[in-house]
């Protein structure tokens, strides 16, 4: 309790000292006047204005680049949204009649569509049927 009170008093003193520091940095009127009426200060301002104006006129692309830089966050956000949408939507977006059943899924081998399981069975049956009469004939 006593420590807390001591710390509080110390903080108060430090705050008051801090305030006096802040007051101490204020310049005198003479100094302010000297800086404000410094020789050629206004000339330097006019030169700066002219230089910047010329720079802006001679390189309009700079202004375009600055505008583009401002647009970067917006473009990035849109790109992320587009990416997120393309990530989630395909499964929902494809019509049901175009979806292949698990056993009908088309497999490609070296870029050439392979036979589906059903096609394979059908062709095997067809091959068996064609083969059976030949066996009978023998």
């Amino acid at each position, binding site marked *: 309790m006593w420590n807390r009170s001591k710390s509080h008093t110390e903080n108060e003193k*430090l705050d008051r000292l801090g305030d*006096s520091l802040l007051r101490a940095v204020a310049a005198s009127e003479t100094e302010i*006047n000297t800086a404000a009426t410094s020789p050629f200060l206004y000339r330097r301002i006019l030169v700066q204005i002219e230089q910047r104006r010329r720079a802006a006129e001679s390189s309009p692309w700079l202004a375009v680049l600055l505008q583009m830089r401002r647009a970067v966050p917006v473009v990035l956000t849109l790109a992320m949204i587009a990416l997120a949408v393309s990530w989630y939507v395909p499964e929902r977006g494809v019509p049901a009649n175009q979806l292949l059943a698990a056993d009908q899924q088309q497999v490609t081998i070296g870029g050439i569509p392979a036979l589906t399981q059903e096609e394979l069975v059908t062709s095997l049956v067809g091959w068996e049927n064609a083969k059976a009469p030949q066996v009978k004939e023998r």
Partner: protein
Amino acid sequence: MAETIEPEVSLRGAAPGHDPTDNELVAAARTGDEASFTRLFERHRHLVARLAYRYFPRREQVEEIIQESFVKAYFALDDYHGEGEKSFIAWLARITVHTCYDELRRQKRRSESNIGDLTDDEAAYLTDQLHDLSAGGNVEGIAVSRDLAQKLLARLHPDDRLVLMLLKQEELSIAEISELLGWTSAKVKMRSHRAQHSLRRVLRKFL
């Protein structure tokens, strides 16, 4: 020798003897009347210098701030929509404070200013004074030179220093600082709280 500026033309079409308001001068300067901008500069250069001296101790730095602030103001004249009598002053002060803030941050980033380094004498003096203070001495009795005060304040984060100056020195309210800096009131409150702690920490090192 101080530079004297004699505006060739005061305001296009202004009646002789009429002292134009800031807003009238701004309107004329926007149309390219350089003399009007010259008058704005003459009127308010002391205000800008006074504000700049709060953050920078050297005259060259203050002149740089005056220069940069007026150049920025010139190119931002189209954005000025003030209507009140003091609007231009508030607007220019805002530009100046932002310019000071940018410069403080630039210095901090590049660590180009060693102003925070105290000489041995200064450190010894401060330690003695603060020991007296902790022993029950009077705060008001401590004479802190401007140079020493600048060095101590240079140890603060630019945000902290800015907020403390505006709060304690300019005596602005939280709402006014919030408007001036474009920060939320909550951020200004939080910053001022932190700034107070930081300043205590800086001073406590010498206790």
